[in-house]
């Protein structure tokens, strides 16, 4: 049992940064902006999170610094793509490359230094419950934040007037402008929110996941977050499902690869047979499994084309230039 709880704990640790970054990008894309710079903003968050914790001796200072850095870094994208109306795809890619480069430069002197870990918060009483207690009430603080953030994003997008305005801009910026909605200003705010989330997700990597700085330590998680948003058809709860599914399968396949068959004999028959089969396929296939499974599941749950089209921001990626 202990083993299983430990494994499930690593699942939430793997899922949390994906969830946070994807939620930020979801809000950005709902406003009609496609920011492919998530990976770059995330890696900037990772390095500044680590640096902040080192300098101030407190992981929370690192988190704050990462959030601010992510938001400021996204402003660069905002200025180019929103004010100057450059191509969003190219600008986003440039932001990613820039982020990887700058973070490598900043992080040079942090390589090999042991980092500060964010300690888990045990909710008194509740965390003593068997299995679920540790899983739901004995996690790192960013886990709680990520769940609260999911609920907050749902509430904001679908229950508030500001969220309605944001979705309207994503549907048709021309119509929104004609109604007198400040399209560019709201998109700036959305982009900065996305940047802040990516920064926070990066801080999770360097303060919780593996408390150290390694160059390019996001390792493509920003891209996974981007894909999650699309496959979740721009719905926050589906992003949550996708992030956890991806996290779970990543961790499971790692464990299956590491264990020998004799170590797995405690498993129930069917699962043992499945694990045995999985072990017999090439390792490359196993590494691809999380991607494959996430895509398949999210495609299946969003197979209602009508609903998908209603949720797809129609103005996504189109630059807006008001006619003045």
């Amino acid at each position: 049992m202990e083993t299983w709880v430990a494994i499930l704990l690593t699942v939430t640790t793997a899922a949390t940064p994906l969830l946070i970054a994807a939620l930020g990008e979801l809000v950005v894309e709902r406003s009609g902006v496609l920011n492919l710079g998530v990976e770059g903003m995330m890696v900037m968050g990772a390095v500044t999170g680590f640096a902040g914790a080192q300098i101030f001796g407190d992981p929370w200072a690192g988190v704050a610094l990462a959030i601010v850095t992510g938001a400021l870094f996204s402003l660069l994208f905002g200025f180019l793509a929103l004010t100057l109306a450059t191509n969003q795809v190219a600008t986003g890619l440039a932001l990613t490359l820039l982020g990887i480069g700058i973070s490598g430069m900043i992080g040079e002197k942090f390589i090999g230094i042991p980092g500060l870990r964010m300690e888990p918060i045990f909710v008194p009483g509740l965390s003593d419950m068997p299995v679920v207690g540790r899983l739901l009430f004995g996690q790192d603080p960013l886990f709680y934040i990520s769940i609260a953030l999911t609920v907050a994003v749902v509430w904001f997008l679908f229950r508030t007037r500001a969220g309605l305005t944001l979705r309207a801009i994503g549907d048709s910026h021309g119509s929104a402008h004609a109604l007198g909605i400040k399209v560019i200003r709201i998109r700036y705010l959305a982009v900065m929110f996305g940047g802040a989330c990516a920064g926070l997700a990066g801080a999770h990597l360097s303060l919780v996941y593996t408390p150290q700085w390694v160059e390019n330590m996001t390792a493509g998680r920003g891209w996974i977050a981007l894909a999650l948003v699309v496959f979740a058809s721009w719905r926050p709860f589906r992003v949550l499902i996708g992030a956890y599914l991806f996290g779970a399968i990543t961790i499971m396949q790692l464990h299956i690869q590491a264990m020998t068959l004799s170590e797995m004999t405690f498993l129930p028959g069917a699962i043992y047979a499945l694990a045995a089969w999985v072990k017999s396929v090439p390792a490359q296939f196993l590494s691809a499994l999380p991607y494959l499974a996430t895509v398949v599941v999210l495609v299946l749950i969003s197979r209602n084309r009508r609903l998908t089209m209603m949720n797809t921001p129609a103005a996504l990626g189109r630059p807006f230039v008001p006619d003045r």
Partner: protein
Amino acid sequence: MGPSGKPTLLEVRRITKIFGELKANDAVDFDIAEGEIHALLGENGAGKSTLVKMLFGSLQPTSGEILWRGKPVVVSDPATARKLGVGMVFQHFSLFEALTAAENIALSLGGNTPISRIAEEARALSQAYGLPLDPGALVGDLSVGERQRIEIIRCLLQKPDLIILDEPTSVLTPQEADKLFETLERLRSEGKSILYISHRLEEVKRLCDRATVLRHGKVVAHCTPSEQTPASLAAMMVGNEVAAVARPASIAHGWEPLLEVRRFDQPARGPFSVPLRDISLEVFPGEVVGIAGVAGNGQGEFFEALSGEVLQKRADQVKIAGKDAGRLGATARRVLGAALLPGERLGHGAAPGMKLSENLLLSRHASDRKAMLGGGILGLVKGGAVKRAARRVIEAMDVRKSAEDPEAAALSGGNLQKFIVGRELDRQPRLLVVNQPTWGVDAGAAAMIRQKLIDLSRAGSGVLAISQDLDELFEISDRIVVMADGRLSGSLKIAEATREKIGILMGGASPAHHTGHMEDAA
């Protein structure tokens, strides 16, 4: 005080708007009294939309002033305009398809009134004005007429004193338009002012108290429409008399149909697409067949099926010049002698970023292979021949352009439409299928295009024209069929067709069904 003795609500003094080198509005003067319906007339590009956008704060004037109840005001943005009491119903609806009617209304109201309250108010107001509306419906699912009702309700909820309507009837059935006129007359009787922009001179004459006519950005006349005829109003707009379209009697050129569609069904292709049901249609040589209908009843889908943008299940569902074409793409259909003119100019009718000559080659490289391609199987482009053909089209259609061979996107909508129509006519096709032949084209050019469609048919070709403009179909068609809810009515000979009959069919009822209703009422 206005000329009618009522106090002046809005006055515009010498307002000018310059875009680069173009004077879109040049010292425009006019005023609107309280409780007046004032028409703003003019051709495409005359500057009507620019003027209206300045009144609503979407654009800022270069010079001149706007007076509201006698006081000069600066309308810096739409929110300011709404605060003054100006409401606007847009020509190209400014609605959000993915949101509900109530959410759309809420967005323009500002403030934080709960959506449910807004929905209730909208429902009450829609009942009071006889404009049925379901606040919970998704806009993407609604017809164009229903969408316009949302725009009007949204505008009325802001309790404006001046309502600006930009070509409101261009997308409505005659019956829906009548209903709209009742609403407008009622608003006038309540003391509201209306600025009414339209191409339809008949309705301006019927509805409006006064009119201001713009030409090339300048005011050329203020007049009282009831004292004018549609022809005299058109003459003021264009600057000279518009030639009437001549439709000589149709001559039978044979009984082999050039286009034959038999019992064709097609399921909806997306959430906002209309399924086509049991469509049969023939177009014979020497005739123009018109398809009437309110936008969004399957005309676009039917055109895509005919043009080969969407293929049919069986080859014999569409026949062109007697040959099975159902499984052929657009190019192969063109080779069979069909010319295909989509309603969307940019993206379907022409590639925006390519030059006119390149666009001509794109649509005719297969049908005019000998003239335009050389080098045997290599198919090398004969640049000179293509450019000459483009020049020929430009001259024949009087396409006004800024450069020798500009990109398609650089042309105004009306001029691009002239080029696209001319490009296909230049081939002398045996069959021409055209969707919205004169959409957004001004009166003079529209008359020319219509005449050319008739001339083509009289030379022995078949023409199928899909249009929302009933006047246009009455001018050019020998037979009219009506499309409603993805079905095609039986055809009416032009001599038997009346606006009323067509209007009833456009509403989706079969004529017999409707007669029954009238008997009930009697």
